[in-house]
């Protein structure tokens, strides 16, 4: 579900860009930060090594 959430954030960011909303760049940065956190948690958890 977390990956679905990220994809929804991508769509939300596109929606904000479409409307020229002030949150378009903050939403992109939020998505980036959340994906980065997910990647970092994956990289630092050897027992759930994903491939």
């Amino acid at each position: 579900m977390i990956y679905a959430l990220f994809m929804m954030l991508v769509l939300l960011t596109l929606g904000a860009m479409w409307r020229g909303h002030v949150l378009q760049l903050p939403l992109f940065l939020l998505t980036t930060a959340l994906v980065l956190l997910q990647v970092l948690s994956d990289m630092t958890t050897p027992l759930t090594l994903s491939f």
Partner: protein
Amino acid sequence: MAPLFLLAATGNIWVLVLILTGAFGVQLIAGEPPCPLCVVQRIALMMCALGPLYLLLQARDRVLTFRDLAVGNGLSIIAALLGAAVSARQVLLHILPGDQGFGSPFLGLHLYTWCLIAFISQILASGLTLIGSAWLREEERVLWRITNVTAGAFIVIVIANLLSVIAEAGFNWNLPPDPVGYLLFKK
């Protein structure tokens, strides 16, 4: 020069949409559900496309500016760096001799290796576009008719991936490390 930037942005989005469609095709035809790292790479590809989409959407209503080029390419570079880190991690996970890699190879390389090439190419393309912005004339307003079609194709492939990942994860928060099917449909 503004039409050239919009043409490049449109081409960039369609290439990313084609890569995502290809990966989705492999998933459906070869019956190989993507692993968590593969899904993150797909998300990074989608985020890369937001940069050129930003350019097209800004140029829809007004003149394309240096600021638009800087922001759009900045978005793509950040997303491509994130994607490249994930692809490189997956390449390194399978670098030991004798390791068969994850999934079927395509033209001799695994999909995550192709993704790494795609992310590096995206960074190069965005860098070249930023250099090319020196030749942008801000007074040119361009009527670009295929913005909606391009954005529509992007939305379709994102929604297809969204539904696919929901089917794959079922009611779980995370995906299994080595997925073999779609948990939503398992009894």
